[in-house]
């Protein structure tokens, strides 16, 4: 596999841009670095969900549950709530594991379901998890109910804390770099999975489950694997979310979030990693951009506010989604083209 000079230069340029990005954003305000961090979290979630929906073709409307599991695992093991303060590099793998188990638990009873039925069951699962978080405060106070868990530890390596500012390195910028590294790892993992024996089995099941069975694939195990893998990514993202926010409550894990993540996957192009990333970026940034432009634009045009910015923002957002799905039903950047590229790469 030879990398051309052009390829290498492009790679270096992207790397430099990604490293410089937070400082450029910080000039516009630290809020933009935070927004970017959340966008990266959503990319991670979308890539996780993409394994289930995009690769294996299993519709999951309760994906945010795994994000919640990861977040609460982190919150419980690194906050004054139980007085536990484990380091993040211990908790994140635990969160991935617990979320992965939760994925298998959701997967097991739903193996025979497909399409709409599967969507309904997973939707219910997502709600159940949220309701548990809301109510597991008595008789034994595990989750602290709707009030959520406060004062969650930030990431720390020795004396180096991710929450404090050191010179030009603000807290959000530190997290940005950490998230970037995790994102790179997740992209590599996803590409390798997609291009492996397991990845082929996922696609085969998506394409024709009966033929996949007859061709010798243990569809039960392979589907469970998809649920568990996808969920574990959600768990990792959840842990980072808890640390960055310093606070978790059941409110963050509502059905809307599941739908938003699914929209990112579908909009970008199910099954294609780069498409999914594009979808997640677009849907994360567009509302924010609109938030910052809708109000000034109206003032400039009409001299006063005609429509509440929040309403208009959601309207434009929804309209853009409908248009995309109308004119690019397979997503902005669908999968097949990518497949071809991959094949060419390998030769």
């Amino acid at each position: 596999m030879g990398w051309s000079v052009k390829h290498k230069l492009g790679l270096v340029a992207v790397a430099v841009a990604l490293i410089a990005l937070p400082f450029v954003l910080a000039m516009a305000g630290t809020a933009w670095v935070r927004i970017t961090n959340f966008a990266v979290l959503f990319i991670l979630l979308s890539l996780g969900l993409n394994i289930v929906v995009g690769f294996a073709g299993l519709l999951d409307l309760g994906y945010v549950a795994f994000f919640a599991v990861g977040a609460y695992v982190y919150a419980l093991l690194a906050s004054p709530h139980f007085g536990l303060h484990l380091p993040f590099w211990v908790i994140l793998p635990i969160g991935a594991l617990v979320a992965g188990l939760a994925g298998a638990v959701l997967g097991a009873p739903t193996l025979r379901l497909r399409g709409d039925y599967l969507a309904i069951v997973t939707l219910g699962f997502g709600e159940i998890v949220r309701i548990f978080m809301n109510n597991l405060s008595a008789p034994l106070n595990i989750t602290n109910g709707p009030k959520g868990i406060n004062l969650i530890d930030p990431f720390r390596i020795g004396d180096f804390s991710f929450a404090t500012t050191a010179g030009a390195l603000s807290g959000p910028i530190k997290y940005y770099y950490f998230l970037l590294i995790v994102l790179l790892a997740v992209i590599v993992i996803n590409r390798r999975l997609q291009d492996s024996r397991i990845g082929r089995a996922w696609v085969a099941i998506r394409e024709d489950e009966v033929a996949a069975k007859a061709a010798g694939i243990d569809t039960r195990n392979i589907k469970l694997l998809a649920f568990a893998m996808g969920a574990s990514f959600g768990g990792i993202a959840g842990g980072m979310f808890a640390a960055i926010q310093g606070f978790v409550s059941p409110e963050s894990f509502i059905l809307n979030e599941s739908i938003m993540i699914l929209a990112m996957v579908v909009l970008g192009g199910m099954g294609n990693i780069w498409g999914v990333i594009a979808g997640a970026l677009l849907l994360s940034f567009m509302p924010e951009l609109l938030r910052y432009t809708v109000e000034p634009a109206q003032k400039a045009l009409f001299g006063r506010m005609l429509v509440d910015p929040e309403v208009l923002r959601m309207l434009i957002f929804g309209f853009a989604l409908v248009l995309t799905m109308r004119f690019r039903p397979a997503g902005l950047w669908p999968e097949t083209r990518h497949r071809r590229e991959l094949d060419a790469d390998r030769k």
Partner: protein
Amino acid sequence: MTNVLLEARGIGKRFGGVLALKDVSLTIRCGEIYGLIGPNGAGKTTLFNVFTGLYPRDGGEVEFAGKPLQLDSPHRVAAAGIARTFQNIRLFGNMTARENVMVGRHVRTRAGVFGAILRSRAEREEEAAIRRRADELLHYVGIADRADDLARNLAYGDQRRLEIARALATEPQLLALDEPAAGMNATETAALRELIEGLRRDGVTVLLIEHDVKLVMGLCNRVAVLDHGEKIAEDVPEVVRANPKVIEAYLGTSAH
């Protein structure tokens, strides 16, 4: 007397009120091409689906290669050494021809999630071997030049071949073909016939459902006839052809 590869005893299957298979017993010997014929709705495909674990059966046992065959899950049947094609071609349409065959190697390979993520040496070697084998099989069935095409873009005859290649990738001892010549023109059928004869030469036992009587009679070592879910004859082609019951049930009712 040649070795017995598959022995089915008393297979029954009903769909609600329809008795699709009635106490069907048959014996397939190693290395032969065993034909299964009968009018439409006789139960041929149903018997395939029972043999390959896709439909639960209502009675009967199957012994394969001297061992009882677990019929409860298709992937176990594939692992035991039975592979099949479908009457209405079932390929993975959005995967390339090569990838379709690579999927067939799944049951004979072992790389898991961690191997894939770490790209361990064992995983890379296995992946390369899977790919090599897939290319060999595409060549074997005569569609090597189509390797990078999406399966759904292949010509009809090539799709049939691809399905056979995918089945062969599982290293079957018994290859079950469900009407492979259906919808083929004369040239394609002749090429298919050569392919199936080649399989026999290479030691693969073939169970062949076919509507084209000429093809079956010319190709098969032995033929069984199903009618209304019952086996009414089983013998060498010449004898079956002369059997009055067969003439009445099958040849009499069809245009052939």
